[in-house]
């Protein structure tokens, strides 16, 4: 899997490409937790080019969400392919995460002031 960073004034976007599976999930997890530790707590994961995800990949999103909660961080996922969206749905993750169609919507979601 390739991970590309795209930084805007409001958020860090990670663009995933390829497969988020047992082989790549630990690298992705370290990368995400590294941002959170460094204070980048508004994260967008662009999944337009992500072709595959398994439970270890899903687990990274849970870990990130738990880590972001105490620091009032934000996480939004965008541009999921239908097959990936189906895995999120089956896992019960669709309602737990902010998932948007476009990166612009994701940026708006993570930029909103705390409720």
């Amino acid at each position, binding site marked *: 899997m390739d991970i590309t960073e795209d930084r805007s004034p409001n958020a860090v976007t990670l663009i995933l490409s390829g*497969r988020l*599976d*047992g*082989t790549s999930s630990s690298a992705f997890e370290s990368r995400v937790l590294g941002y959170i530790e460094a204070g980048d707590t508004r994260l967008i994961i662009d999944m337009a080019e992500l*072709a*595959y*995800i*398994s*439970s*270890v990949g*899903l*687990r990274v999103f*849970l*870990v990130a*969400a*738990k880590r972001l*909660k105490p620091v009032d961080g934000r996480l939004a996922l965008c541009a999921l392919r*239908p*097959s990936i969206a*189906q*895995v999120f749905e*089956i*896992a*019960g993750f669709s309602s*737990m995460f902010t998932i948007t169609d476009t990166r612009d919507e994701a940026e708006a979601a993570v930029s909103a002031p705390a409720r």
Partner: protein
Amino acid sequence: MSNPWHHEDDRRMHVIELKNDLGELPRLADELQAFAAANGLPDAALLAMNLALEELVTNTISYGYADGQAHVIAVSLNIDGPDLHLRVEDDARPFNPLELAAPNLDAPIAERPIGGLGIHLVRSMMDDVSYERAGSRNVVSMRKRVADAASPKDKHHGHH
């Protein structure tokens, strides 16, 4: 009832023997992709097949053995009419994945256990999953309807 594991078109049946090493997962993925391409399986079917097999094989490799020895996990793929049949066989400790309780999918993030999702995904992505302990082996058999896209486009298949 016909035996779905026997037919003459080799392309539609494939066996992958994996070592009990997580480093085998990329090879599993590559072989599944080649099988899907050779049989014209849609991307959604490839994803479901790969997901189910990755979850089961990962479980076996991670938790199935305590002896530190090399073992073989046999993954069989077979297309029979509109159905894709998958089978995972190992000589690991007895483990029936169907006895695992389903995770609570309504729990809020903070209360979600990390992990425990894999078998739920397997059962959800497949149409049928069955388990049997055959002697010293675990055998998990799965079926997924992959519909017309799985039919070969050439005309010489079958007994005409």
